[in-house]
């Protein structure tokens, strides 16, 4: 998702302006002239200035499309792969507490491998062994309490 310089500049000016406005609305501290909003407000101003310079650079550069999408957005196979990747992380963040690390990790590893053309039996074996490896490393060696989920009481 590549924006041309002008579009990137306008986006930067907008976000910088928002940041500056939000910073100036932060409450001050009595008896202290520089409040919590001072530094982020400076950042917002700097962003706006950078944005203006980007827009100026963009004016000179002609013929660049406003927005260029990466090739994989058009191709079905690669697009689905990215979707699987994003969904895997998002669903893990949302449901791992209830489902548990082990079932989730097996599902994720299986899904990614199958999408990338690994034979199902091999993919399944690698997913299970890999998950056990991760579980042992983090749960047993590093003592990170991974969410047990549906396997509560078993692991």
């Amino acid at each position, binding site marked *: 998702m590549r924006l041309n310089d002008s579009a990137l500049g306008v986006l930067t000016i907008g976000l910088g302006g928002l940041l500056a406005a939000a910073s100036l609305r932060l409450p001050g501290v009595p008896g202290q002239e520089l409040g919590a909003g001072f530094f982020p407000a400076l950042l917002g101003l700097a962003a706006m200035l950078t944005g203006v310079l980007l827009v100026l650079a963009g004016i*000179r550069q002609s013929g660049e499309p406003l927005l260029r999408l990466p090739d994989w957005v058009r191709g079905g196979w690669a697009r689905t792969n990215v979707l699987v990747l994003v969904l895997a992380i998002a669903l893990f963040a949302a449901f791992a507490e209830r489902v548990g690390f082990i079932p989730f990790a097996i599902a994720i590893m299986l899904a990614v491998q199958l999408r990338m053309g690994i034979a199902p039996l091999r993919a399944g074996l690698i997913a299970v062994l890999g998950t056990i490896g991760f579980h042992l490393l983090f749960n047993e060696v590093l003592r990170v309490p991974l969410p047990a989920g549906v396997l509560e009481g078993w692991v």
Partner: protein
Amino acid sequence: MDALLAAFGHVFEVHTLFVILLASGLGMVMGAIPGLTAVMGTALLVPFTFFMDPVPAIASIVALTAMAIFAGDIPAALVRIPGTPASAAYADEAYKLTQQGQPWRGLGMCMGASAIGGIFGTIVLIFAAPALARFATSFSSPEYFWLGIMGLTCAAFLSSGSPLRGMLALLVGLFLSCVGIDIATGITRFAFGSTELMGGVDFVPALVGFFAIPELIRLVTVRETKKATIPPYGSPFRDLLRDLWQWRVQVLRGNIVGTLIGALPGAGADIAAWISYAVSRKFSRTPEKFGTGHIEGLAEAGASNNSALAGAWVPTIVFGIPGDSITAIVIGVLILKGMEPGPAIFVKSPDLIYAIFIVFILANILMVPLGWAVIRVARYILAVPRGVISAFILVACIIGSYAINNSLFDVGMMLAMGALGWFMEENEIPVAPAILGLVLGKMVEFNFIQTLMKGQGDPLTLISRPIAAVLALAVAMIWAWTAWSAWGRRRAHAA
């Protein structure tokens, strides 16, 4: 002297040695697999370092990166795909040797030159760092403010072709460092009512998201091409000593150039390799042989990228200004461990500094036997399908982000930072300045506000001390030079 003995004690503990060996093995494998870089390896290693003492934590990063930068040469030589960007400069050259039926010569030279380069860089680090640190011990908040600004400036302006994009990356990082409770006033900023965000944007999920997710997307969106056949090859030690002796001047020059470029903030191993390869060709008596499987450039650039790795640590530990992306991560790890990099670290924990030196030497010596072993099994490593690698990296990203605070919120944060990192890469906005901004942001803001308050809001307080004024002048000169060269480029472009 006591500190040196203590350092030896730290490093030669069974636990630390085990960590070094493990990280070395991991670095070799990650470097040898095209698409997995030394920076990504470091990012994925950071969650583990969280559970270690400072010495093994830093040792694991040193060992992993040294091995990965060397191991990147292996697929470059065997199938013409550099394992890490640092090997790209001479991938063609090394592959030509393989095509001529002498793969061991390219592989051996890469291994020998890498080890020598790494050790040379370390020796420079050992002598240069303490001397610079002595000079820097009298610094106070205005100096630290300017040092921070200088580090951020260098990272922003030198790490990419476009200073404006570098600046943008830096502002993103500095903004992220503002999220959460402000240490000076206790006021919560930009948390949008989320209790998790009140603690700020955690460094680890941001790091994993920024560095690993864009690479992962690249990994799953490109179809696996048919594997190139790897010819059988003999021991990398065959002809190695003869070649090293023949090209000793080139190796030495590669060492010097590499260390200097590494020490330059913002430029790392990959740039060092490109420059050394070009230097080698320029000074060569037979420049026409370059690109035909000639070992001369290989020797110089192979030594250069590994010495750059050590050189990058000089500004990192002395001033807290990282030399490259890897040392930007190291600064984050040191801060996580409660050790602010900077001259004070030489007084507060000299044993840690000595331990870093020892580990560097140890890792570069280990590179020879481990390198030999990995070269032997390289054909099997290169045969691991991309689907399997992607699956493991994805789970490592998720679990690594989770493990720091045992929080699923951090997994979501990693995804958000991954999306941001991907957008930045698509737009050629460098990621390293953003990470640096996130890491150094709080320190810079604190010193800035503190200095201004000391002078009752008078901005001239920032340059009231002589060294601070010199540093400010240096920063101003970097800004002016960057603006001037950008302006010059534009005019040349228009003409």
